[in-house]
């Protein structure tokens, strides 16, 4: 591992776990803090627990299983099943009193997402592995191949007449998933920025954009991709980077800033930027959009980076939209089912059920449209609604705004 890069917030996570070896005492102490709390606030909020009703698959279970390993009453090989059952959505972290009520005071919080990444990677690194990890490695390799195909990565810009690369103080960051699989969202974002008269350039071409390398001991790949993108953005002279995919926003705001220190540019999520343009009168939602809409908070925004206001404000500003809101705290309990990294590949059935339940909640509100903030939610919900034959329109908030602005 590259020196000077802070992969984990807790020092105890830096010692790799190995078969037949006792975990370090410092890690056991950290595990004990969660084991001993017994509040289990992390239980009901967990979308995986809501489906499985298995306490082994909540942070309480994760920490207890590691403590059992320390006490010599379980084996390293048993961790695989437990630690694959996590969406890495961050709900437990924000619901846990260790974080919510004491984390900022003691500087000790629940760090499930990092722990799950660590244990999964340790399992792979040691040769033990976990069910389905080969599929995750395939996804990483696929991503690495795709980002080399410049033409495919920039196809979404066709006909938009946008600057690609070069100097610009405002940069639009569109990573592989959105650039190749949910292009309409990226195109709508670019059209809206142009309509508002923003001079911007698109990154030529981003390499990062997935969290899976951190689940399969490919941490160096994750770091290398991130560093290359940061260097590219710096070379463009960017002051503001507008991010379209909330997963990227999470990586920039939390992972990259922890790993590399303060970033030399400001990172803004697209809906925050667009709402600012609306407030300044540079974008006017004028066309009537007659829809009954509810909004699904992506985990990477609502739980992991606490961004939930701007998508709601945008929806409320669109004429004709009947917005039925579900409070963002209520949505700590929700997830589309895709997860932040590998979950869908590891447990597709649970992933499907979580998605189905979320869509049903939207239908129960009488909404005909589920507005989204994340291209990956759109992708997963599309699959779920097709398989489950559920009738609901799925659309990104950015696209809905573009429709109202008339671009």
């Amino acid at each position, binding site marked *: 591992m590259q020196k000077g890069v802070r992969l984990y917030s*807790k020092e105890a996570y830096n010692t790799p776990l190995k078969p037949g070896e006792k975990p370090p005492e410092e890690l056991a102490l950290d595990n004990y*803090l969660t084991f001993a709390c017994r509040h289990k606030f992390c239980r009901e909020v967990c979308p995986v627990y809501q489906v499985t009703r298995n306490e082994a698959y909540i942070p309480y279970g994760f920490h207890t299983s590691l403590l059992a390993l320390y006490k010599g009453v379980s084996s390293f090989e048993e961790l695989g099943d437990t630690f694959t059952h996590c969406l890495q959505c961050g709900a437990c972290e924000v619901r846990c009193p260790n974080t919510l009520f004491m*984390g900022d005071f003691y*500087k000790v919080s629940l760090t499930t997402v990092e722990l799950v990444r660590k244990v999964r990677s340790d399992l792979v690194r040691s040769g033990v592995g976990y069910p389905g990890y080969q599929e995750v490695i395939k996804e990483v390799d696929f991503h690495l191949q795709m980002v080399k195909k410049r033409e495919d990565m920039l196809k979404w810009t066709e006909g938009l007449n946008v600057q690609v690369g070069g100097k610009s103080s405002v940069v639009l960051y569109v990573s592989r998933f959105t650039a190749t699989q949910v292009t309409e969202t990226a195109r709508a974002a670019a059209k809206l920025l142009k309509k508002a008269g923003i001079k911007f350039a698109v990154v030529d071409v981003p390499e990062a954009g997935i969290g899976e390398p951190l689940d399969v001991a490919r941490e160096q790949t994750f770091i290398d991709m991130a560093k290359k993108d940061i260097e590219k953005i710096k070379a463009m002279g960017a002051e503001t980077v507008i991010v379209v995919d909330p997963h990227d926003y999470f990586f920039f705001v939390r992972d990259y800033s922890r790993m590399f220190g303060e970033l030399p540019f400001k990172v803004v999520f697209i809906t925050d930027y667009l709402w600012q343009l609306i407030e300044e009168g540079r974008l006017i939602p004028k066309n009537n959009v007659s829809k009954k809409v509810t909004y699904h908070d992506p985990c990477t925004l609502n739980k992991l980076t606490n961004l939930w206001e701007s998508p709601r404000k945008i929806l409320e500003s669109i004429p004709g939209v009947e917005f039925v809101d579900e409070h963002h705290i209520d949505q700590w309990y929700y997830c589309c089912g895709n997860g932040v990294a590998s979950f869908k590949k590891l447990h597709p059935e649970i992933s499907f059920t979580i998605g189905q339940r979320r869509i049903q909640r939207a239908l129960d509100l009488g909404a005909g449209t589920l507005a989204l903030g994340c291209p990956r939610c759109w992708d997963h919900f599309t699959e779920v609604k097709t398989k489950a034959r559920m009738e609901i329109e799925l659309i990104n908030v950015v696209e809905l705004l573009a429709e109202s602005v008339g671009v």
Partner: protein
Amino acid sequence: MVEGVIIKYGHFEVDPSRMKIVKQQYMTEEEVERIVQMRHDYLEWMHYNFAKKVLKPPKEEAEEGHK
């Protein structure tokens, strides 16, 4: 309590030298702000959903009772 507390990034923090058994983790200023903001949001949500009335300090409560 007071001598064991410092103020960092404008928020109270336990004196780090007292954290000898449980080690503190790395936490940026943004992380601290995020946790504090989410706590406020959560308490507001709890209040909205579950508080039937706001209890006043005993003195104010007693004064209102006399009116």
